[in-house]
């Protein structure tokens, strides 16, 4: 029922696309694939790991060949000999052997120097920025995942799902889940206790007073109601989860991920999870604290991925870390580090196109006015990649959810569901040039590039979707090509021309004037 509603919506959204009259690559096929892909999205799982306090990225992914790093951190720099090499000039903190193993196995990508323009150095404000995906100078009230889930589930909350869309393991749900219809996620800390407690509750709806107390009372009642609705489903998932031969540490993060693994392996149809570990605000005596935190993180993630792999869920699960900011290059006088700017994040799991550090080593010669790492990758680029390429969310809806269009990063082995859009095409090396001249009367030249030999079709449709002409339709070698198209038979107006090759397609506009 939920899925059908969504398909219906997606189909309506697809109706604005031009529909070519025929051909292997015609739009209806793509739309069909896209819907297939959307249906598949419900199986995919994203686990976010919040490193609260501002993780020291420079001591996590260490620029071991950069003398500036060692000069700036006389007491807390990690020696190159101790660090775990992963790529040219970069090495992981010595306690992260688990992550190193995952990285070397090709299942971990590191996105370096992640941040946003006008970095805010308040823990709370910057955490809110990460959770809402707002620009730094604007306060948004809803979260990035809340907006995604709200668009995906327009029937909520009139119709409640059988399981929560999203869950935070802890006592309160993240702002990231917040939508205009309330939180799209729920908090749960102990599934056994939750079930036992929730089943003891009964609530009789009653009108609320028309005072300030009314909304608060409605809120409390809604939470009580939801606690009841989901309790059996959650309990069943926990009971169904197999006991895999893995052992989690007693650390809070490990125990949180253990709960997530039980939900996933037990078949709970929840797609988004957030876990959180605090303590990264290492202003003082950083070395032992940070060592412990990264050790906990690395071991917990490794155990968790092993756990889901045992239950044949490895293909469905991706983890991603995030932290509100990195820390300053220069250590302070307390053998610690103060609040900084950009820092790396980890994307882990079998579907990840791993073994790479996107963005390479941080540039320690080009710092901002506080002496902090400038960002190379906007965190919303990572969000866009995750929403589109992992969760299979449509590009236009992703742009809406994130409040803008962000260039995606090649984080996944195969972009979502084999229905790539223009960003995928561009990343894969397919380029469609603007036609010249444009506007055009008569002949115009259309240039394009393909990265490999392929059957290529370039066709033109009118603004109303009517097919008006084929420019190219044959197999071509890799490289740059040109084709000429005669617009003389066409009426004045705007037309769309599309390059289609394999699963990829790219479109541009041309204007015809007579």
């Amino acid at each position, binding site marked *: 029922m939920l899925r059908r509603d969504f398909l219906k919506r997606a189909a309506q959204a697809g109706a604005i696309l031009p529909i070519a009259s025929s051909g292997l690559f015609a739009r209806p096929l793509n739309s069909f694939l896209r819907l297939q892909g959307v249906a598949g999205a419900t199986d995919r799982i994203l686990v976010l790991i919040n490193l609260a306090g501002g993780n020291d990225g420079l001591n996590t992914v260490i620029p071991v060949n950069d003398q500036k790093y060692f000069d700036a951190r006389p007491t807390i720099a990690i020696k190159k000999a101790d660090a775990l090499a992963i790529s040219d000039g970069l090495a992981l903190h010595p306690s992260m052997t688990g992550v190193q193993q995952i990285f070397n196995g090709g299942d971990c990508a590191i996105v370096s120097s992640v941040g946003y323009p006008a970095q805010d150095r308040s823990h709370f404000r910057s955490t809110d920025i990460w959770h809402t995906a707002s620009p730094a100078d604007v306060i948004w009230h809803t979260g990035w995942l809340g907006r995604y889930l709200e668009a995906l589930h327009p029937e909520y909350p009139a119709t409640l799902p059988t399981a929560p869309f999203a869950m935070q393991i802890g006592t309160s749900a993240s702002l990231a889940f*917040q939508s205009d219809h309330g939180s799209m996620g729920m908090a749960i800390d102990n599934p056994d206790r939750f079930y036992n407690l929730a089943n003891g509750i009964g609530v*009789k709806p009653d009108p609320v007073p028309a005072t300030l*107390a009314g909304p608060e009372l409605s809120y409390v009642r809604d939470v009580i109601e939801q606690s009841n609705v989901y309790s059996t489903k959650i309990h069943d998932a926990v009971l169904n989860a197999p006991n895999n031969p893995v052992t989690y540490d007693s650390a809070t993060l490990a125990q949180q991920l253990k709960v997530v693994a039980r939900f996933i392996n037990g078949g709970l149809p929840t797609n988004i999870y957030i876990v959180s570990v605090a303590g990264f605000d290492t202003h003082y005596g950083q070395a032992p604290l940070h060592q412990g935190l990264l050790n906990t993180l690395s071991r917990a993630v490794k155990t968790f991925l092993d756990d889901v792999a045992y239950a044949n869920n490895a293909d469905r699960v991706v983890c991603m870390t995030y932290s509100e900011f990195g820390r300053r290059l220069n250590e302070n006088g307390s053998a610690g580090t103060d609040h900084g700017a950009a820092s790396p994040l980890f994307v882990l799991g079998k579907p990840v196109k791993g073994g790479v550090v996107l963005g390479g080593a941080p540039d320690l010669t080009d710092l901002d006015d506080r002496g902090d790492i400038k960002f190379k990758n906007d965190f919303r680029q990572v969000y866009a990649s995750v929403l589109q390429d992992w969760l299979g969310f449509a590009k236009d809806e992703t742009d809406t959810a994130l409040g803008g269009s962000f260039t995606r990063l090649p984080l996944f082995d195969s972009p979502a569901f084999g229905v790539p859009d223009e960003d995928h095409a561009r990343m894969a090396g397919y380029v469609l040039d603007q036609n010249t001249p444009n506007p055009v009367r008569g002949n115009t030249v259309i240039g394009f590039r393909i990265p490999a030999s392929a059957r290529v079709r370039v066709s033109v449709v009118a603004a109303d979707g009517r097919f008006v002409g084929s420019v190219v339709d044959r197999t071509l070698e890799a490289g740059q090509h040109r084709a000429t198209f005669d617009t003389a038979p066409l009426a004045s107006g705007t037309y769309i021309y599309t390059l289609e090759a394999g699963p990829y397609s790219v479109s541009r506009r041309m204007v015809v004037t007579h």
Partner: protein
Amino acid sequence: MNRRSFLQRSSAFAPNGAVSSAWMEPGAVLRHNLPGMRESVASISAGDLTPYTPRPDKPWDTRRAAHLLRRTGFGPTWEEITAAVGSTPAAVVDGMLSGAPMPDPPPASNGDFPWYNEIHLSPDNSQLQQYYSAASTLQEWWTALMLLPSAMLREKMVLFWHNHFVSEYSKVLVTPFMLTQNQLFRQNALGSFKDLTKQVTIDPAMLIYLDGTTSKAGNPNENYARELLELFTIGVGKYGDGTPHYTEHDIVELARALTGWRVNTTTTSEFKPASFDNGNKTILGATGNFGIQGKTSMDVIDLIFDQTDKDLGKKRAAVFVCSKLYQYFVYDTPDMDIVAGMAETMAANDWQIAPVLRQLLLSEHFMDDNVIGARIKSPVEFVLGSIRQLHLNAGITPTSRNNTDIGKQGLHDPVTAEGYLAQTLLAPPNVKGWPGGRSWISSATVPLRIRYSQLWIDPISGQDGGYGFAPVPFVKSLPDAKTDVNKLLDHLLELMLPLAVTDDARKPLLDALLAGGQTYEWDPDAANAGPRIKDCLIAIAGLGEYQLT
């Protein structure tokens, strides 16, 4: 009403998720609330700061007296409510604001370790164990103080300051410093916000918590400087004209001015001139050799408190702390007209808290029906309120330490219960403190709250063990208990809920008391009255209204 229409109706207010961080900055707290809700607020007349005058349509009655006592304490008993009704609002509030004697420090921990005199800056393992033990003694002692009727408002303000000038035990570790800070809050609970800020700035626990004690000239630690501006005095944000309340540069310079203070093995800190940055700094537009060079000369704190809120024309630090006081005592979204009035009162009274609270608590605004029951109970309010209102015995006093009996009944002691509900004293989640409001209520905490209520009223043993709830004596302490079961139920509801319930909701509660009998058959001394009273109370505690105050 079916669930669908229920949800549609309630979605007019769009229930907000339990967000993980509230924002105390006035312009930003709105994000907890949605536009529809804001409009509904604006349409309701809510009174202003003019003194409340009892009158027929706004009487000083059980409901309003209970409101005042709930907000200023930790759950009033029936006796306290009736005593207040028999007095005047002003007399009740003045009684709360009058000084109460400072309590003796907590009792020594196990083994007669006089822990509050022994300070080890780098405790070894056995000293750490003693500090841990002492910290739980401190939690229990403080909780026991909150349960006493003598200084409720003061203790409620100690909790306010603990959540304003946050220090987490897990970093400070030296329990004597946590006690010193706790007593500092108590001594200054209703006094000058500015003086308290000065004392907190050189308070040993705070110097450790936000790294002041390692901050030195030439390489200052920014931690305290940032939070002093962001969370303690000015608040992050921008004025209406787009200028920020302060800049990153102000933090850098302020960090220099705050250098030089060190903790030592006493409960006071000391100034080390060699560590102080003795140069000129430019902070908030003023240039000079600012610093904290002695306990009386804290020109840098004066400078911060001199800042004016460009939008409201009041002292910015007064606006900031008054909006938090408003949230603590009235409602989660500050009414900025009221806050501006409070800030003016604060400025006119040399930053004293007491006159501000007196004005607020005795105002038409505070006494308005609109705000009654509009706050969600914090875990401390929830746990201690249940204990006080139901005459439970929590097994703790400020002078002894004996909660073991409760443990044997399979029930948590109050401190542990508060922790399970996400509010462990001495352990706020981070330097910003507990966000409060709706964040207290989630699918993780609400089922547990309701379960605790059930166990307090009806322990698993089936006896009146646990917290020692005695249902029959409890109802017989209320008027009309023997003669009129309907009136008895009204009193129970007035005591336990801040909002009236409808007849539909009331009926099953009466049915629970009567268990199928007729009203004239009611007899609290009947053999089976106890279980029926318990059923009724458990049903009341299961209502959403019971989570409000």
